[in-house]
């Protein structure tokens, strides 16, 4: 402990992350301004990408960081969407505030779900969540006021008089359908930025460290005062909230819902898992890479129906067999790039002395 050194300090950023930060800000500005010059189809594609990204980020938070491999996230997509439809149709609420309510209802569903599912481990947990989602789907299809098993559409009066939609119509001089797309797109941008920002923030707090610690070694984590049980709860509820909001938003844009669609394990969980795993689980970058790959595959190949799906399956298998850390895992192993660094680096103090020592010894032979 010498006094002629700088005091200790902790840094998290890297050079790449600072550049990435600046680029991200530019990207956000571009995303927000996009509707001014982009075609509607691009806006819709972006909406799809952003909402799938949100679902993927939350699933990644659950499975990649929280170790909770759920195959029942479609329950929260569906319940969020149905809650939104319910209050719009039955109580006449405007759909925009109803989206938030979708998230709240998803959390309300998540509480009993967690109470039950947390009693189960590993594969039991996975299957348990799947069954719970099925139960929610079956219950929802008994709810005749929103169409039962048939499903229903948002009343056209509600979609036509959507909050802000008129302002957007006059701002961009577009038809009301296009204005609605722009509005949903903006909401998706907000949701995606908030999700990634929020998860990144969480991972950089001490809770993020605790999550990683629990994942590495749960007994040791408990022994240093980490409440592993509460971490699981927090992660599960946060993921349910975000997933519920995303579900409500997705179905606001679709304007039509049915239990089979809204609670589809394939669309809302299996594809999401694909995205996360193809991109790289346990990183924030992974789902971003994954969703882009997924989107490209879908837009190139979706017209080939069965062949497209077969190819998707094969790609998933190959990545799992040969690159279990996903594409981002490959990229960052090659380049060492981290766009969302969470690692804390201690500097100053005794580390400075050491650094200058090693520097000297490195320089010596040259001199």
């Amino acid at each position, binding site marked *: 402990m010498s006094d002629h050194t700088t005091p200790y300090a902790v840094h998290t950023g890297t050079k790449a992350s600072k550049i990435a930060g600046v680029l991200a800000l530019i990207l956000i500005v571009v995303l927000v301004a996009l509707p001014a010059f982009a075609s509607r189809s691009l806006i819709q594609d972006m909406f799809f990408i952003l909402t799938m990204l949100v679902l993927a980020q939350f699933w990644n938070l659950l499975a990649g960081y929280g170790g909770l491999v759920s195959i029942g996230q479609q329950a929260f997509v569906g319940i969020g969407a149905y809650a939104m439809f319910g209050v719009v149709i039955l109580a006449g609420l405007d759909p925009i505030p109803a989206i938030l309510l979708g998230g709240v209802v998803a959390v309300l569903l998540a509480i009993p779900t967690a109470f039950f599912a947390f009693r189960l481990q590993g594969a039991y947990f996975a299957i348990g969540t799947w069954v719970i989602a099925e139960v929610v789907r079956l219950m929802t299809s008994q709810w005749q006021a929103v169409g039962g098993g048939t499903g229903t559409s948002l009343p056209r009066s509600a979609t036509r008089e959507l909050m802000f939609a008129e302002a957007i119509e006059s701002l961009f001089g577009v038809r009301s359908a296009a204005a609605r797309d722009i509005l949903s797109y903006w909401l998706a941008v907000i949701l995606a930025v908030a999700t990634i920002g929020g998860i990144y923030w969480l991972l950089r707090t*001490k809770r993020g460290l605790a999550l990683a610690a629990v994942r590495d070694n749960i007994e040791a*984590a408990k*022994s240093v005062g980490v409440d592993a049980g509460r971490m699981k709860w927090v992660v599960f509820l946060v993921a349910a909230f975000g997933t519920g909001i995303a579900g409500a938003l997705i179905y606001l844009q679709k304007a039509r819902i049915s239990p089979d669609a809204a609670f589809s394990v394939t669309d809302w969980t299996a594809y999401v898992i694909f995205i996360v795993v193809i991109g790289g689980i346990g990183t924030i970058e992974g789902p971003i890479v994954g969703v882009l790959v997924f989107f490209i595959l879908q837009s190139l190949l979706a017209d080939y129906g069965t062949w497209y799906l077969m190819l998707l399956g094969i790609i998933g298998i190959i990545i799992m067999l040969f690159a279990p850390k996903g594409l981002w895992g490959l990229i960052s192993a090659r380049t060492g790039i981290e766009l969302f660094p969470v690692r804390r680096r201690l500097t100053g103090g005794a580390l400075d002395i050491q650094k200058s020592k090693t520097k000297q010894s490195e320089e010596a032979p040259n001199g």
Partner: protein
Amino acid sequence: MVTPASMLALQNVSKSFGALKVTDDVTFDVPEGQALGIIGPNGAGKSTLFNLITGNLPADTGSIHFEGRDVTKVPAMQRCISGVGRSFQIPQPFTHLTVYENLVVAATFGRQSTESDVMRQCAVILERTELIGKANQTSGSLSLLDRKRLELARAMATHPKLLLLDEIAGGLTEGECHALVETIKAIHAEGVTIVWIEHVLHALTSVVERLLVLDFGRVIGIGDPDAIMESKEVKEIYLGIDV
């Protein structure tokens, strides 16, 4: 009887794994500020005893008091927060975190404070345990020796009142062992109560004031270290020396 001054008191604690009784009606207490050593053959149940004290394992029967409070049913993390710190015999670092981050987890959660508050303390602990140079390495890449140091450092970071150390001196060179003993003495001098399981007897006896011998989960002797070491049972059962 639980004396008010005792930091830790176990009363009739038992634990079985299936048919195997590994802790058999154990009763002892550790007064505040004392350093107690535990020895015993492999598999005697020493580490299990630690797991019971920290709450990593639930006791089958009996009660455990910490600072006079019954903590038998209190979960592990809560016991840590109230002042029980431990090291693991087989080091259990958070392998994906750096050495410094390992300490930050322990310091922020174990003593319920914020990251900025603990930064300096963590750095100081790293200096004391000679890990400072490796602060930014992932702990998965550490050698066994450094992993053991990290165990000690992480336990210290939780700011324990009672520090449980499980075989941290095994495999150290003389110099390293000496440094370790000095560190533990210093911690002890700060008033921390210590319970230390160790096979390296000379290190152990240079620190502890009392020695407990465990065999088949049972306490077969507790008292002054020299007297215990001289006893015939310990020589036979533990040291494997024919007397």
